[in-house]
């Protein structure tokens, strides 16, 4: 499992190979895609990419947490978290690819 880790550079390389843009321009476009997704999420929007998955922002209420090492109670402030729900297509591809 997890034979290797891909980075932005690998995504840019894929764009470069697929569309024939320079590596530099490809990297800029990868960054632009991530930036637009992030900005929409920060604005509270849900980002739905068909046949890939859905990124959504959820509000979490404040609660009392506990330091598992010391047992000490610590307040956890209300916060916004991002959840990703993969599409069925992605689930199927990941499940059959890793059999």
């Amino acid at each position, binding site marked *: *499992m*997890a*034979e*290797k*880790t*891909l*980075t*932005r550079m*690998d*995504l840019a390389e*894929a*764009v470069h190979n*697929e*569309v024939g*843009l320079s590596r530099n321009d*490809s990297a800029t*476009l*990868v960054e*632009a*895609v*991530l930036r*637009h*997704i*992030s900005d*929409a*999420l*920060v604005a509270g*929007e*849900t*980002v*739905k*990419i*068909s*046949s*890939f*998955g859905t*990124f959504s*922002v959820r509000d979490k209420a404040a609660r009392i947490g506990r330091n598992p090492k010391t047992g000490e109670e610590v307040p956890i402030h209300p*916060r*916004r*978290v*991002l959840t*990703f729900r*993969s599409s069925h*297509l*992605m*689930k199927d*591809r*990941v*499940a*059959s*690819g*890793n*059999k």
Partner: protein
Amino acid sequence: MIRSELIQKIADENPHLYQRDVEKIVNTIFDEITRAMAGGDRVELRGFGAFSVKKRDQRTGRNPRTGEAVDVDEKYVPFFKTGKLLRDRLNGK
């Protein structure tokens, strides 16, 4: 925001590119992430998050309607962990 709106935003910022190339670029990025995960690889996008594959062990499940026990095989599922920078931005930091 949906895929077509994302494509439109990128197209608006890059008037020198054909719309169909912008579509191809955006689709390539998502396809490459899916392809990597289908091969058991991880995709780490610093500041944004990381896509990885998690193993779910074989277990005995239950048909919620009949209560009947059913064997569920081990399987691999996609997983996303939000990056620190994005997590902070979501919380106005």
